[in-house]
C-alpha cells in the first residue's frame, strides 16, 4: 500500500518585496528593533523584553514531538512585506491553479490566494462589512493598528489570558509578535455573519507570530473564522501564533480555524479562552498541514454555568506529526464541556493530548471527551494521551477513545453495492469526519472534504 501525498502541490512561495527585515536569530537587539520599527509605546517594549527574558529561561518541552531539528538561530523573526505583489495570474504555477480548481475555489479568490491581487473586490467587501460593524461599535482591526488606536483596551487584555510564563513558545511569541487580529464586540451586539480574518489579511501578508485578541462583552455573540484551507507558504520554519479570547458574561463565541501550513513548518500555536459566567465558548479546528503541530486550544471555565465545546480534526500524511488536543479547566461550579477530536493518519503520526480538570470548587460539573482515530498505512502511528483529573464532589467526567483501521465489513458492504474501493473509502472517511465538517461554514467544509480526499488519494491498493 503506497501512500503519496505531494504536499509541494499545495506549497508555494509568493515573491513579495520586503521593506524591512531583522537579521536571523533572536537577541535583545532584534526585539528592540521590532518594537522600534513598529513605533510602539514604552510598555510594549518592556513587555517584549520581559517575554524575551522568560523565553531564555524556559526549556524546550521534553514531551511530545521532537523539536530538536528546529534551529531557532536561523529564523528571521520580523519581516515587513510590501503590499504590492509583483506576480501576475499567468505566472502562477499551473499545478497550484489545478489545486485550486480541485478545491473549487472561485477564480477571484484563487487570485488572491496565489498572491496576485484582485484585492480590489475583497477590499470593497471588507469596507462594507467594516462600516456596518463600526456602526454597532465593533472594532475589527489589525493588532498593530489597535495597539495605536485603542491603547487602553489593548493594554488591559493583551497577554492576560496567555501569560508569557505558560510555555517557551508563548514567551517567544510575546517577544516577537506582530500583526494579527483585534476584535472587540460591545455589550449585547450580535454579529450574524461569520467574521473572516481573510478579508483583512489579503491586503497585508500574514506573519508567523500573529496575535489574535478577541474581547466579547456581556451578552454579545460572534463567530470568528481564521486561516484558510488553501496552503500558506511560510519562508520561516516556525509559526508561533497566539489567540486570546475573553468571553464575558452570557456571551457566545465561536472560533473556527483551518490551518494548513507548508510541510517545513513547526506549528507551535497557543489558543486560550477565559469563559465567564454563563458564557459559551466553541473551538472548531482543522489541522492539515505543517511538519510538526503542537496545538491544544484551552478553555478556562472561570464563571459559573459556563461551558465549552472543542471540535477538531487532524490529518497526518507521510512526514507529518500532528500533536493536537484540548484542555479544559473547570474552575467554577455547574460548568460543562464537550470535546470531540478526530484524527486520520495515513503515513504520519497523529496524537491526541488533552486534559480535563475539575478543580476543587467546580461542583456539579460535567465533561465528556470523545476521540476517534483512523489509521492506515504501515508507517502510520496513532497515539492518545488523555488526562482526567477530578477533585470535586458531584462531578461527572466521561472519556472515550478508539483507534483502528477502516472497518473491512463497512468497506465490503459499500463495495457490494457496486462502488469502487477508493470511493467506498472516501465515503467512510467522509462519514468519519462529518461531525467536525458539519460545524464549519459551507465553503470551508467543502474545501476540507476535498483536501482530505486528495490526501487519501492513492492510499488504496
Amino acid at each position, binding site marked *: 500500500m503506497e501512500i503519496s501525498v505531494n504536499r509541494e502541490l499545495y506549497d508555494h512561495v509568493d515573491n513579495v518585496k520586503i521593506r524591512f527585515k531583522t537579521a536571523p536569530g533572536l537577541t535583545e537587539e532584534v526585539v528592540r528593533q521590532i518594537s522600534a520599527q513598529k513605533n510602539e509605546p514604552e510598555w510594549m517594549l518592556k513587555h517584549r523584553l520581559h517575554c524575551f527574558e522568560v523565553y531564555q529561561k524556559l526549556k524546550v518541552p521534553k514531551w511530545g514531538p521532537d523539536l530538536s531539528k528546529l534551529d531557532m538561530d536561523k529564523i528571521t523573526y520580523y519581516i515587513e512585506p510590501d503590499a504590492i505583489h509583483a506576480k501576475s495570474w499567468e505566472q502562477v504555477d499551473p499545478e497550484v491553479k489545478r489545486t485550486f480548481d480541485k478545491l473549487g475555489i472561485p477564480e477571484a479568490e484563487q487570485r488572491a490566494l496565489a498572491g496576485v491581487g484582485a484585492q480590489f473586490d475583497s477590499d470593497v467587501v471588507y469596507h462594507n462589512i467594516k462600516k456596518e460593524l463600526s456602526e454597532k461599535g465593533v472594532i475589527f482591526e489589525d493588532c498593530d493598528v489597535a495597539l495605536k488606536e485603542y491603547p487602553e483596551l489593548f493594554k488591559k487584555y493583551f497577554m492576560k489570558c496567555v501569560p508569557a510564563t505558560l510555555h517557551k513558545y508563548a514567551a517567544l511569541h510575546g517577544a516577537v509578535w506582530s500583526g494579527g487580529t483585534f476584535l472587540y464586540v460591545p455589550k449585547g451586539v450580535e454579529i450574524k455573519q461569520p467574521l473572516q480574518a481573510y478579508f483583512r489579511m489579503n491586503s497585508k501578508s500574514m506573519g508567523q507570530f500573529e496575535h489574535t485578541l478577541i474581547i466579547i462583552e456581556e451578552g454579545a455573540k460572534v463567530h470568528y473564522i481564521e486561516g484558510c484551507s488553501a496552503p500558506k507558504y511560510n519562508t520561516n520554519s516556525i509559526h508561533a501564533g497566539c489567540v486570546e479570547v475573553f468571553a464575558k458574561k452570557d456571551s457566545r463565541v465561536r472560533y473556527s480555524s483551518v490551518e494548513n501550513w507548508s510541510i517545513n513548518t513547526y506549528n507551535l500555536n497557543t489558543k486560550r479562552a477565559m469563559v465567564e459566567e454563563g458564557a459559551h465558548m466553541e473551538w472548531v479546528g482543522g489541522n492539515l498541514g505543517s511538519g510538526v503541530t503542537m496545538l491544544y486550544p484551552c478553555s478556562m471555565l472561570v464563571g459559573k454555568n459556563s461551558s465549552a465545546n472543542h471540535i477538531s480534526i487532524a490529518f497526518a500524511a507521510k512526514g507529518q506529526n500532528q500533536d493536537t488536543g484540548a484542555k479544559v479547566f473547570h474552575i467554577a461550579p455547574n460548568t460543562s464541556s464537550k470535546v470531540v477530536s478526530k484524527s486520520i*493518519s495515513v503515513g504520519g503520526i497523529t496524537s491526541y493530548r488533552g486534559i480535563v480538570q*475539575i478543580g476543587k470548587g467546580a461542583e456539579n460539573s460535567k465533561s465528556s471527551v470523545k476521540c476517534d*482515530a483512523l*489509521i*492506515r*498505512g*504501515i508507517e*502510520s*502511528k*496513532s*497515539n*492518545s*494521551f*488523555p*488526562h*482526567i*483529573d*477530578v*477533585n*470535586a*464532589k*458531584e*462531578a*461527572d*467526567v*466521561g*472519556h*472515550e*477513545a*478508539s*483507534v*483502528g*483501521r477502516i472497518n473491512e465489513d463497512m468497506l465490503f458492504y459499500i463495495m457490494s453495492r457496486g462502488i469502487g474501493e477508493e470511493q467506498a473509502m472516501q465515503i467512510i472517511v467522509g462519514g468519519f469526519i462529518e461531525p467536525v465538517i458539519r460545524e464549519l461554514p459551507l465553503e470551508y467544509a467543502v474545501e476540507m472534504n476535498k483536501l482530505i480526499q486528495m490526501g487519501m488519494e492513492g492510499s488504496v491498493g
Partner: protein
Amino acid sequence: MKLVNVSEEKARNILNNFKSYANDAELICLDGSSDISELQEAGDSLIYCRPGTKATLVQNVQKNKTRNAQVYLDKGSELSFVSVQALGKDVEGNSNLFFHVGPGASLKLFEFNAGGAKINANTTLELQEDAKAESISSFMCSEGQNFEININAIHKGKNSRSFLNTRGVSGKDANAKCKGLIKVEKDAAQSDGYQDNNGLVLDGHIQFLPFLEIENPDVKCSHNAKVTHIDESKLFYLQSRGLKKESAIKAIVEGFLFRNLPIEDKLRQMFSEELGG
C-alpha cells in the same frame, strides 16, 4: 536465593531474561494444574509457568512494604494472579509486577489496593503472539491516602489481546493517580487492546491517564474513562429500605468495586473483608 520446586533447566535460564533481581528471591516453578497456592509474603518472587500449566496464585501483602514479582508464562500456560494489598495505614508501599505472557498464554490479574499511606504500584504486561492478558485493578483510597497505580500492556507479538480494567474509589483527602498504557508495537498486527477506567469520587481526588500508542495500522484499540459521584437517588432508595446512610454508601461502593468481577466467592469475601476495614 531459595529455589522451590524447580526441576527444569529452563527455569534457571529465564533468570537471564529478567532484570537484576534480589538475591533472596523465591523461585517458583509451576507445573500441571494446581489449586490456589499462596505466595510467601517476605521477599521477592520469581515465577515460571511451564507450558500447559493452569494455576492460581495469591499474594497477600500485609506487612512487607516492597513486593516484587516477575512472572514468566511459557507457551499456552494459564495463570490467575491475585494480589491483595492491605498494609497498615502509615506504611509507604511499593510494588513492581512484571509479567511475560508467552505465545498463546493467558493471564488473569486481579489487584486490590486498600492499605498504606503512600502506595506506588507498577505492573507491566508483555504480550507475545496470540497471548491474552486481562487485568482488573481495584483500589479503595481514603483518609489522606496517596496511591499511584501504573499499568502498562506492551503488545509485542501479533494477534495479542489485552484488557485493562481499573476501578477505584477516592474518599476524603485521598489522592489516586492511575496511569495506563497500551502500546502496540510495529510487529503486533491484528492485536486488540481495551482500557476501561472507572472512578468514584466521594470527597477526594482521582486522576486517570489512559494512554494508547499504536505503531501498527492493523489493530483495534480503545479506551474509556469515567469519573462519577454517588447518585443521590441510589442513596435515597437504599435508605428508604432502612439502611443507614453509612451502610448505604458502603453497599454502593462495594457494588461499584466488585460488580461483574469474575472471581470466586472465596476471593470476593477476602476483598470484602479488606473493604470492611
